[in-house]
Every structure is written in structure tokens, then in C-alpha cells.
């Protein structure tokens, strides 16, 4: 990492550090909930990729939109979401962001511009591009960032929407988090040629950045967001990163597709939080003790939010047919529309 350019940015640096630690703490708690059989279903951990979500989202405002993925907790936290409402959603409770209807793979946080996680790989590529079309047509300044994984680049949809985004100069940034794997398969086995060349083929300016370096990610995103606002979009960024856990929380025995040495190496040498913490100390922005205090405070916040969510009520059964249609309170009462 380069030297701190501007001491006035201390607040920004701290915010980035805190947000990365918040994501890690959220995921550690979610994993515990799964391991102790207190979470319904499965979930995909974002740990290891924190610098991507935080570096990008810290370059955005609440007006700016993101679309997220099945591995979406990190994007959601980074965009400003609250722990309690997130844990409530993971546990299917009424106070969750989606009133328990969505769960881990569908968390959306309208108040901070998160249009939602998505359980269909690549499923949000159209949505992000459509949001960018809205911004342009409505003359609004917001930029949309479309997060997706390396595996999602195999979806044909991406090529269709990139073509249109380029033709229509839409303010959208396609952010591919290349964590080296899609499920149990290495990226080299599913991607021919180069990813950035694919975007470039549409005349889209494309960048590769170290996804473990929060400052590098943030700096690049700030530039691209600024250029999107003046009509220079779309852009593509490929971020080199790594997921620490299995594909999902239940993917414990991973030896057949990736080595423990490889996992240990990333954690030891390229951990985005450790490295940024060291940099903050080197630059004399923070002391080691101050960082530990932040970590502890956030861990206890997460624990309190988990407890809150465990104690929170489930939605009432009569919510089951609410929100099927906008403008219809209960779908089962809609004429001829549904049945019980």
C-alpha cells in the first residue's frame, strides 16, 4: 500500500477499517449460528473479500445503488445496513430487512440503495443495468455498482447487458469479485481467455485491481464513480480476492478442490483487515491498542445483535400472503387469484 496522502482522511480510513471489521464480525457470528444449528438453511460467507465491498461502497453515497449476490452480507454491511435487521433476516424474523421473507440470499436494504442479494448467479446483471438506465432517463446522478463473482461471468446475460450499457453509455460499474472459485471449480476451468478482454470487446474501459487492498479499490472506484456521474460509464473492474470459508457454511471438507496451504497463505499474507491495520499503525494514524478496542467493540455489537435477533418474534402467519402484489394486502383474498 502507498503512503497516506492526506491526514484529513483519517476519518475515512477509520470508517473503512471499521466496516471491514464489521463484515468479518457479522460473518463469524453467522457462521456460529449455522454451526450451532440456530440458523435456518445455508449461507455463503463473505470473509476474506471485505476490502472489495468496503473499498467500493465507501466511494458511493446512499443514493447510489448496488446489486448483490448470494454471497451478499458484505455488500449489505458495507452499504450501511444495520446488524440487528440483518441478523433478524437471517433467522427469518419479522424485524428482518425483508420481514423474514428473503433470508440470507435475498437481503435488500432500500434505505441505503441496496437493491438486493440474488440467489440466481448473474441474476442481478440486468437489474443493475436497468437501474443505470433509470438514472440516465430520470436525469439523476446516482451510479449503480453490479457485484458478481467470477463464476457469473459465464452467464450470457452479462454480455447482452454490457453491450446495451456501452451503446447507451449507462452509469454502471460491473465489479467482478474473482475469488478463484465458483462453488468447487477453479476459475481457470470455467473461463476461457481473459475477463477484462471480454468487457473491452464492447469498448468498455476495464481495470484489474488487488481486491485485498482497500485503498487501491477505493481510489479506483472513486475515480470511476466520478466519471460515471459525468456520463463516461460503463466500466468494468476485476478484483482479485479470496473467500476464506467454503462455498457455503456447510462446505467443510474442501481438500478435494483447494489446499489448506493455499487458504493459510491468503489468510497469513493477504488478509485485507490485518494488512490495512498494519498500515494504519505504520502511518501513525492509529495505535495497535486503538484497533483492538475497535475490534472488541464491534464484536460485542455483533453479539448483541445476534441475541436480539434470537429473541425477536417470527412474522405472524397472516403475513404469508402479503406482498405478493403491490397494492393488494392479502393475495389469498384477491379475486380468483390465490387459494389457501
Amino acid at each position, binding site marked *: 500500500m502507498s503512503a497516506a496522502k492526506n491526514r484529513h482522511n483519517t476519518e475515512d480510513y477509520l470508517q473503512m477499517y471499521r466496516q471491514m471489521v464489521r463484515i468479518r464480525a457479522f460473518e463469524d457470528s453467522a457462521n456460529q449460528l449455522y454451526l450451532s444449528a440456530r440458523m*435456518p*438453511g*445455508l449461507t455463503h460467507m463473505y470473509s476474506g473479500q471485505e476490502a472489495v465491498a468496503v473499498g467500493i461502497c465507501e466511494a458511493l453515497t446512499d443514493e447510489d445503488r448496488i446489486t448483490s449476490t448470494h454471497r451478499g452480507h458484505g455488500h449489505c454491511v458495507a452499504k450501511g445496513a444495520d446488524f440487528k435487521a440483518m441478523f433478524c433476516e437471517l433467522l*427469518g*424474523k419479522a424485524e428482518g430487512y*425483508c*420481514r*423474514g*421473507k*428473503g*433470508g440470507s*440470499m*435475498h437481503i435488500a436494504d432500500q434505505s441505503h440503495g441496496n437493491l438486493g442479494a*440474488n*440467489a*440466481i*448467479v*448473474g*441474476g442481478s446483471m440486468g437489474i443493475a443495468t436497468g437501474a443505470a438506465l433509470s438514472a440516465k432517463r430520470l436525469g439523476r446522478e446516482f451510479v449503480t455498482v453490479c457485484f458478481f463473482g467470477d*463464476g*457469473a461471468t*459465464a*452467464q*450470457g446475460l452479462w454480455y447482452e447487458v454490457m453491450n446495451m450499457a456501452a451503446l447507451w453509455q449507462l452509469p454502471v460499474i460491473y465489479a467482478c469479485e474473482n475469488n478463484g472459485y*465458483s*462453488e*468447487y*471449480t477453479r476459475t481457470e*476451468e*470455467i*473461463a476461457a481467455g481473459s475477463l477484462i478482454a471480454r468487457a473491452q470487446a464492447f469498448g468498455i474501459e476495464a481495470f484489474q485491481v488487488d481486491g485485498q487492498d482497500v485503498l487501491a479499490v477505493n481510489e479506483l472506484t472513486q475515480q470511476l464513480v466520478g466519471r460515471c456521474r459525468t456520463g463516461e460509464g460503463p466500466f468494468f473492474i476485476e478484483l482479485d480476492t479470496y473467500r476464506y470459508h467454503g462455498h457455503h457454511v456447510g462446505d467443510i471438507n474442501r481438500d*478435494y*478442490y483447494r489446499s489448506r496451504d493455499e487458504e493459510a497463505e491468503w489468510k497469513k499474507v493477504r488478509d485485507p483487515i490485518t494488512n490495512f491495520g498494519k498500515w494504519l499503525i505504520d502511518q501513525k494514524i492509529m495505535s495497535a491498542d486503538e484497533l483492538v478496542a475497535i475490534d472488541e467493540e464491534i464484536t460485542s455489537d455483533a453479539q448483541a445483535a445476534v441475541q436480539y435477533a434470537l429473541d425477536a418474534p*417470527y*412474522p405472524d*402467519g397472516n*403475513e*404469508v*400472503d402479503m406482498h*405478493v402484489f403491490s397494492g393488494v394486502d392479502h*393475495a*389469498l383474498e384477491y379475486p380468483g*387469484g*390465490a*387459494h*389457501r
Partner: protein
Amino acid sequence: MTREITLSKAVNEAIAEEMRRDASVILLGEDVAEAGTPFKVLSGLVEEFGTDRIIDTPISEPGFMGIAVGAAMTGLRPVVDLMFGDFLYLVMDQLCNQAAKTHYMSGGKLTAPLVLRTNMGATRRSAAQHSQSLQALVAHIPGLKVAMPSSAYEAKGLLKTAIRDDNPVVIFEDKLMYQDKAPVPEEEYLIPFGKAHIKREGRDVTLVATSSMVQVAEEAAEALAGDGISAEVIDPRTIVPLDEQTILNSVRKTSRAIVIDEGHQSYGVTAEIAARIGEKAFYHLDAPVIRMGAMDVPVPFSPALEDLTVPNAAGVAENARRICRGELIHAA
């Protein structure tokens, strides 16, 4: 000799046997080779058949579905593994506009002998995009056969028949049943399409149930027996073709019917079967035919809501008791 094996093992055996028998059978899908799919259904196949025949694809469902159609038209017999039934929406054009219509549009000159293996079933807390039961969607399309195994025994026998069929066949496995065991013969067997299985004989009410709902119907029948109501349980095994005769014979005997399927109720499989009973056995009926499908809402994540959306044994038994008492369940 019969032993008990899981549904997952039954599927694995069916594919292995057919691949040994016929070199033109190949299998394609995501994480099917070394990983053996996320449900571990295909574990071990790549060791025997190699990566030339057990082919890992990128996450490109329309692409590999289309490749399967073309390969099927030119000499191979592809088995496509679609990880979740919910991803059917991604492959609909290749399946319904291409595979389903090839034979007809070519005046019988081309065929597309392929199998699309996928799954269905809610209550796994997987939310709205990983829990759907979309059999009605494909059963609606002329040219596609649709099989719905209700146990390991059916899963193996129907899949082997599907692989030998010269038409595109979609087979839905209940993802909650992969670890359920059932007696399966060691010897080779096939289950013909279009022949329903009478799982339990009865006099008072016919329960026609598919896949995951067969167990539900059997449980309901058991409860009803305690109340002196004798329920007949029929598993159609394939919904295209549909063994109408067995269903109608049963209803003519019992004069009451409840049709149960895990797809959404409206415009669904239950609606189709109920309509046929209404059309063809009307004068034998003592009560309106009752449909029981999944509630017409996207599948909610919260356990508190999700369990309300699928038919259960208590609900089936209650409806059966009421129609046997002569009550109207859906009063106008």
C-alpha cells in the same frame, strides 16, 4: 435381491448402468464431475466414466442446455443436470422452443433424446429462488415428457426409462428426499412411463399425489384409517404421459378425489388432473374434486411462513374427512 438405498444412490446407479450399456450417454452440468453435484448425487461417476462423459460446465445454463439439444439431435444421449428446478426459467427457450418441438417441426425426421434431471420441493429454508416445484410449467409444453419419482425405487426405474426414451424428458427429484431410503432391487429394472402405481388400496376416497406428496398422502391415509375412512393412494409416476385410466377407475370406485402436488395450485398439475376427473368421471362423483397444491405465493424464507405454504398430511386428512361427511370445502 432387494436392498435399501437412498434416492441419491438410486439416481447414481441408474446413470452408471445406462452409461455402461450405451456409450452415447453423456452427462453435463455444473460441478457434476469431481464434486459430484452439491447434493453429492453423482459422486464416483467421473472416476468410472472420465471427464469426456461426465462434463463440468461453466454456470451457463442456456448454453449447456442448447448444447445438449444439438448433441441429442446428432447422435448423443445427453443427461443434463440442472442444479435447482428454479433454474428452469434460464433454460426454457432451449428446452421448450427447441428440444420439445424438434421432432414435430421436422415432420418426425429429427429427434432430441435427452433427459433434463432437476429437482423440486420446499421447506428446506432455501427461499423463493431455490424452492419451487415447476413441473406444471414443462408439463404444459407438448413434446416434453415429465417424470416425478416418489422414492428411490421410482427414481432409478424412471430415470433409466427416460434415458432410453427418444424424446426430451424432464425428471423432477424431490431435493428433500435424496437421503431417504427405499427397497430397490439389485437386478436391473425399468419403470414404464404412463403407468400409475396404486400405493394403497381403498374404498372411500382417492388421493392422487405426485413426488413429495405421495408420502403426505400415505400419512393422511394412515390417519384416515384410524377414523374408519379407507383412502386409496395413487402415484401417477409420470404426469406426461398420465395414466388417466388408473385414476378414473379408482374414482369410479371411491366417488371422491383429492389431488395433491407441490407446485402452485392455480393453473397447476392438480388443476389438470382434477379437471380430467371432472370431465370423465363426473357422474361417479359424490363430492367436488379437491385440489391441494402449494399456496400461490413465492416460497418465503422464514420457517414460520414456509411451512404454511405446502400441503401436509393433517390438511389432506381433514379435507378427506370433510368430503366424506358430505361437507363442501369450497362453498361458493
